């Protein structure tokens, strides 16, 4: 199979798999085997592309020319590789977890759940592999639409209202602002291809570029910059595996990934670093980091707290992209990976707690460490990684982001990052601390060892180990992240 074919197959496989999942709906075991097999093969295919991209290859294939000069193109470059790897690997882990969770939680409509889940992964991979802005936009929307049924999954009034907020914010920003920005870019540059060094470099300046940048940043609602973050906490009504993979990894990362791509390949770092608007947006990202952390501290619902934490962490990546220095972009790229592993661990733990004890509030968790030691230990690991403490992966991305703020001469933003780390400590660490050292409020918690189903525990242990491994071996991802801006770095 040629590299280009692999690209297409890897993209379509989850979508095709979803058909089989749908057809095998009456036999849960078959359905889940199909899901796992599809996830596994997809991961294998994506991984097989890694050496090619790492060696400097840029597999590219034009699928069809939709409009004159606006084709659907797939092209895998280092940042996309990074995102595709994360998404496809965590899909396998989440599939395992979901089987335990969905069965343990006796959810209805499980077939629809698995079908939409698989289509969402196709959407995320499409975003990662998009070769131009149009293709990116297409898969961005596929991802939005495929995740909507997952948010409204339970069909309660609350879920439907959350679905409306979700679809409302994501689609209105993307159609209203992002599409306008894309058409405008097309009008200015005469093309939409992602170009190393920047598609718009040398073609626009000043206010026009500033407005365009704002359209992109606010048009990507999935990046959840304030004031467009409301959909993310709302989406937490979804089943936990959805929150874990999609709302901590695939969907939100598709958002920040889009901004990162736009920063690197549409504007180019040279143009972006000169833009006044870029600075202001970076400050807005800084504000989002602090404000979302403060809100997270006040949330008693565990998933809501994690959701606001995600909002805050996403703005780290936006900050890195908008500062447009070599270190900050590398840091932003790496933070996609590091945050993904950390946050998915936390969500897995939240789901495991829900399945095992039906507890959803932070205040109910005191003393739970004795009953669910593995889960709470994994929660501690995930927390430390998110905070950015060694020996966990989160440290590296924060390191580079901090270096990036200094490169850009933005000491204030460095202060923001440091303050945010302290806030992270304040809203994350009390949870495991209470669980291990607190006094159980509920007599049943004093009882013996009672973990969530095996599949759930296995998945969360795996991702927690991943956090540690990424501290020891961050290099492959660092390389991918720096490769994206390498041509630029050498030209200086």
């Amino acid at each position: 199979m040629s590299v280009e074919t692999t690209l297409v197959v890897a993209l379509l496989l989850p979508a095709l798999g979803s058909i089989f999942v749908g057809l095998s709906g009456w036999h849960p075991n078959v359905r889940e085997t199909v899901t796992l097999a599809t996830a596994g093969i997809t991961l294998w295919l994506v991984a097989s592309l890694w050496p090619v991209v790492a060696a400097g290859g840029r597999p590219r294939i034009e699928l069809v020319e939709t409009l004159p000069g606006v084709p659907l193109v797939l092209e895998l470059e280092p940042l996309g590789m990074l995102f595709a790897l994360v998404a496809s690997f965590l899909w396998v882990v989440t599939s395992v977890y979901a089987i335990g969770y969905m069965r343990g939680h006796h959810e209805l409509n499980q077939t629809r759940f698995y079908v939409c889940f698989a289509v969402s992964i196709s959407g995320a991979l499409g975003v990662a592999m998009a070769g131009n802005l149009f293709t990116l936009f297409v898969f961005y929307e596929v991802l939005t639409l495929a995740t909507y049924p997952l948010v409204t999954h339970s069909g309660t009034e609350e879920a439907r209202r959350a679905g409306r907020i979700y679809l409302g914010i994501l689609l209105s920003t993307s159609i209203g602002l992002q599409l306008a920005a894309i058409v405008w870019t097309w009008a200015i540059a005469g093309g939409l291809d992602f170009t190393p060094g920047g598609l718009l470099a040398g073609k626009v300046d000043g206010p026009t570029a500033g407005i365009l940048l704002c359209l992109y940043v606010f048009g990507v609602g999935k990046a959840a910059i304030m004031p467009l973050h409301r959909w993310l906490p709302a989406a937490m009504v979804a089943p936990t595996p959805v929150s874990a993979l999609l709302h901590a990894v695939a969907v939100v990362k598709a958002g920040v990934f889009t901004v990162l791509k736009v920063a690197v390949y549409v504007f180019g770092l040279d143009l972006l670093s000169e833009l006044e608007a870029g600075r202001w947006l970076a400050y807005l990202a800084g504000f989002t980091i602090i404000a979302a952390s403060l809100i997270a501290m006040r949330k008693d619902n565990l998933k809501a707290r994690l959701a606001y934490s995600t909002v805050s962490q996403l703005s780290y990546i936006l900050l890195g992209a908008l500062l447009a220095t070599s270190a900050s972009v590398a840091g932003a790229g790496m933070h996609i990976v590091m945050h993904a592993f950390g946050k998915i661990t936390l969500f897995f733990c939240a789901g495991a707690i829900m399945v095992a004890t039906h507890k959803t509030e932070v205040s109910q968790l005191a003393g739970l460490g004795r009953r669910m030691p593995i889960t709470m230990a994994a929660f501690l690991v995930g927390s430390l990684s998110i905070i950015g403490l060694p020996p966990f992966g989160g440290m590296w991305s924060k390191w580079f982001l901090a270096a990036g703020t200094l490169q850009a001469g933005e000491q204030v933003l460095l202060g923001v990052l440091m303050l945010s780390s302290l806030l992270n400590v304040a809203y994350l660490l009390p949870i495991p601390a209470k669980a291990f050292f607190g006094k159980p409020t509920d007599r049943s918690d004093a009882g013996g060892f009672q973990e969530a189903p095996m599949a759930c525990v296995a998945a969360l242990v795996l991702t927690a180990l991943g956090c540690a491994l990424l501290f020891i071996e961050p290099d492959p991802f660092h390389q991918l992240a720096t490769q994206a801006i390498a041509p630029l770095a050498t030209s200086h």
Partner: protein
Amino acid sequence: MSATAVMAHLPALAVVVPLMTAPLTVLVNRPALVWRLATLSCLLTFAVAVGLLARVLELGPFVYEIGGWAAPWGIEYRIDAFNAYVVLVVTGVSAVAMPFARRSVEREVERDRAYLLYCAWMLALTGLVGIAVTGDLFNVFVFLEISSLATYVLVSMGRGRAAPLAALRYLVVGTVGATFFLIGVGLLYEMTGSLNMADLAARIPPIADSRVVHAGFVFIVLGLALKAALFPLHAWLPGAYGAAPSAVTAFLAGTATKVAIYALLRVVFTVFGARFAFGTMAFDVLLVPLALAGILVASAVAVFQQDLKRMLAYSSVAQIGYMLLGAGLVSEAGLTGGIVHMFNHALAKTALFLALGCIAYRVGTVTVASMAGLGRRMPWTMAAFVLGGLSLVGVPLTAGFVSKWYLVQAALERDLWWVAAIVLFASVLALIYTGRVAEAAYFRPAVPGGLPDRAREAPLSMLVPVWLLVGLNFYFGIDAALSAGVAGEAARGLLGGVS
């Protein structure tokens, strides 16, 4: 008759085939047989339309003289990319909706009157195709009235006592519109002594300052705008679409207003010329705000409709705004967007109305409340409705996206920020009104006893046309080379001398 002879007479055949079918349907007068005859005729007309388009794309525009009388004394049919495209849309929609109609009409129209419905349908098709092919202004009026009279009959055959009322209201407005058109044509004839479009186009510029020509322009445009349901002249449309039998609504939604828009663009661009219409008469100053107001107001009204047929009807008013907005921007991209939207909207809206027809067939009522739980009972129908809705919203990879792309591009070309913003904002409104239905169908549990027992999946003969259109929505969203290509060709043809 040899193949070349058939090819030579294609323009006439497009009109003659449905016209001859109409009396036959009355003579045969047996529902099942009449339906077969009508379906055959629709397919044949569609084949003729394909032939016409192929011929135009191959050889360029050509003229067909009726009865061999040379223009300007005789009537000529003048075929270029634009009207071949419109004929294709009209006959295509008819050819898809007619096979669908049998079961739907069986349920919604009394058996002994069904043959009249098919007869009126064929006459409406005759009129609509006639408007599109003819190159003579008075001939446009005649075909306009043929199609209108047939349409009033079709609307009046809907269920309940509201149908004749809606038909009469439509008739009053339609007749006023057609009469305005007639007055305008008379004034032009008085000034130029010609009724032939091409001839008029040559004779008008020297007398462009005449007050009579100005009045003629206003009367013609007003008349056609009434027929096209340009906001705020749209009041007849929701009532008529809401009351008509489901299959008829689908047919009309895809064709009637489109043809009126075609006639409007043809008169404005070809007969009067863009310089006169937009320079002297400053038509765009009126057209663009009205189109935008229509897009916004009608979309907003659609959001609050409980009856889904009326909801889609208001959505049609908004979509007509898109088509005319494209014309009002007077640029190649704008016109391409407007014209390609005729095609794309016909695909999306016909699919949606046909899906509603399936629901009406099984459930009876088509209100938002009656959708609850229908996603499970009629999975294929509802999936088609959702996918058609996505095309209406203009999600990428659907046909609707292609139109929006061109329209936004055209607005940005002229630095009309707010226009682009409104176009995109209205997409969000479309999302709200179609999303509401999807939400009810999939995520609201069925009320016990809310759905009748016969509410199961629609019969195959109804599902196939729906899914054919849904498939085309995606095909032309992924590869718009044909739809946008021909629309671009048509736009260049209309702009012709200006640029």
